[in-house]
């Protein structure tokens, strides 16, 4: 079984980079489809992709558990969802593997991949992940539970209850906060008292780490270290990845109504994807040409995914009442 300590090979990093590009291409496509009136509602991971993929790349989909949140499109891809599957969810098709078109896209779930079905509610996944962590600890196979959320979610009582429980019982859980400093229109200063999210770990006697979310290698290292700790019985870690929300909260929101235009303009220049690309080029792992080829390839993939998803059948109306309870 591979361990995180193995480190990052060029192949794995390029694969991660490809996943980042997939997420962005999917996002671009979704916005086009939204403007064309074909998709109802979009939450964009723009600005979070590198952090999400960096984190998941340090873990073991299939072995570990993942409690994702609605902004985790890049994380979902990293967990093994295909672009077509995510487009099936966007179009609310029957074959959407997460919910068969029942939930808004962004509520990812796939039992075989260890991606635990979430809801749109902010926060409840955090103590739930502690419970999953407890189960994994009992099973004693070294698996862990990764749970992600925004800094807004840290205000919920459930954040506190989840960290407290996981810390008491040394559950193998990685609490991964994607801090984009905004919860819809509420800025961090009105949301998170005190110095920041990472510092809250000390209250529970567990390690707290702050990391730049646009630095793939830094995120990966932080998560890999936390994973090793979790797998070896060292208990949970709280990681705060600082990211930018390069889009409004969702297509129902327009952040220009409440944010400083100068700040928005400055942030637009700090897209983490070019930064990751440049880092790979500097390492000699990627050339501009290979980058372009990869982008073209990803775009074709997303195009095919879109076509396939759009053509896929809707859920049967008669299925409405299924799965409220177990089938008899």
């Amino acid at each position, binding site marked *: 079984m591979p361990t995180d300590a193995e480190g990052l090979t060029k192949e794995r990093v390029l694969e991660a980079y490809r996943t980042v590009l997939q997420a962005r291409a999917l996002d671009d496509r979704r916005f086009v489809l939204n403007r064309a009136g074909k998709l109802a509602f979009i939450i964009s991971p723009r600005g979070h992709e590198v952090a999400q993929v960096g984190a998941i790349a340090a873990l073991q989909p299939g072995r570990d558990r993942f409690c994702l949140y609605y902004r985790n499109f890049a994380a979902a891809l990293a967990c093994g969802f295909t672009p077509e599957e995510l487009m099936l969810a966007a179009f609310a098709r029957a074959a959407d593997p997460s919910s068969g078109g029942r939930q*808004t896209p962004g509520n990812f779930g796939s039992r075989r991949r260890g991606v635990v079905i979430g809801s749109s*509610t902010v926060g409840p996944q955090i103590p739930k992940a502690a419970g999953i962590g407890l189960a994994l600890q009992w099973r004693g196979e070294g698996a862990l539970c990764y749970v992600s959320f925004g800094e807004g979610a840290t205000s919920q009582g459930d954040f506190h209850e989840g960290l407290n429980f996981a810390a008491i019982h040394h559950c193998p859980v990685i609490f991964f906060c994607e801090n984009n400093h905004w919860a819809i*229109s509420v800025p961090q200063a009105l949301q998170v008292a005190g110095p920041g999210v990472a510092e809250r770990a000390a209250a529970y006697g567990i390690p707290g780490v702050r990391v730049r979310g646009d630095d793939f290698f830094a995120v990966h290292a932080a998560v890999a270290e936390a994973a090793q700790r979790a797998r070896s019985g060292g208990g949970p870690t709280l990681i705060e990845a600082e990211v930018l929300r390069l889009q409004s909260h969702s297509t129902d929101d327009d952040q220009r109504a409440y944010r400083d235009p100068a700040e928005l303009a400055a942030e637009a220049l700090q897209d983490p994807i070019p930064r990751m690309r440049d880092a790979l080029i500097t390492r000699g792992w990627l050339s501009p040409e290979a980058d372009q080829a990869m982008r073209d390839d990803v775009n074709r993939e997303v195009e095919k995914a879109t076509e396939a998803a759009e053509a896929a059948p809707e859920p049967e109306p008669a299925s409405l009442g299924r799965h409220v309870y177990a089938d008899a």
Partner: protein
Amino acid sequence: MPERTLVQAVRDALYEEMERDDRVCVLGQDVGLKGGVFKATEGLQQRFGAERVMDMPLAESSIAAVAQGLALEGFTPVAEMQFADYSYPAFNQIVNEIAKVRYRSNGDFSCPLVIRAPTGGGVRGALYHSQSPEAFYCHVPGLKVVLPSTPADAKGLLKAAIRDRDPVIFLEPKKLYRAERQEVAQGEAALLPLASAAVVRQGTDLTVVTYGYMRAVTMQAAAKLSPDGIEVEVIDLRTLRPWDVEACVRSIQKTGRLAIVYEANRTGGFGAEVAAELAERCFASLDAPVSRIASPDVPAMPFSPALEHAFMLNPDKVADGLRRVARY
């Protein structure tokens, strides 16, 4: 009189009451510069400042609790839950604390406040932006529950709720927020009393008791029955706790038949209370069984348009149900 949508009428009510009484204040997620996700608080923070219109952390229990603290100190908070589905983290504060303040203190304290929340479906909000949880709150002694269906009612009842001496859960059908414009009175002329139903269609053959978005659906269903010689009397309860039993009894004495149309899950919905109470009170007048026409017992409407449509009541489904009662 100015023409207003329902959400504008809500906003006007808040504005007027805040102008009238400087103890009235607004708190919730994104209620400030953004003006709320549905724009119900638009412009209020600009006018009344960031204290009286306060953006709250993403923590519903504390929203309810802070509102309660303000109310105990003589302020009149109007707290917003971003969606009624997200009021559950505050359930303990609402049910165990707010609702029981007056009773448990033997009248020494009171807790007059309003908790507003958009309710119901039909806007592709899926499982977590579509729920109709009024039955939960209607079962709680100490709470009042209002659920208006027109701009004028929303304004008049919200003003009354703010002036009420007890805590009021004020549920706003989000499907109706922009559904129609209506002339809405200003200032004191807009006020409407709580606990008073409106007979919104006169009829002789069948009484329908309904509320919220289902009022409009019922009105369309009633129009479909008219050509068949079935004249439906439609009562919009507007306030669910306490509700206007007498208005309903009077109508049933005339029509001899009763259906209740509600959007919530059928089992244990507030329509059960209406049915039980009126079936008992009007036993001798009833020529047919009291029928409930409600949403299926499925968590809430799925995201898929096909499934959302299958879930939701519409004029045809309601007309079918009413015809059965009329023809019994």
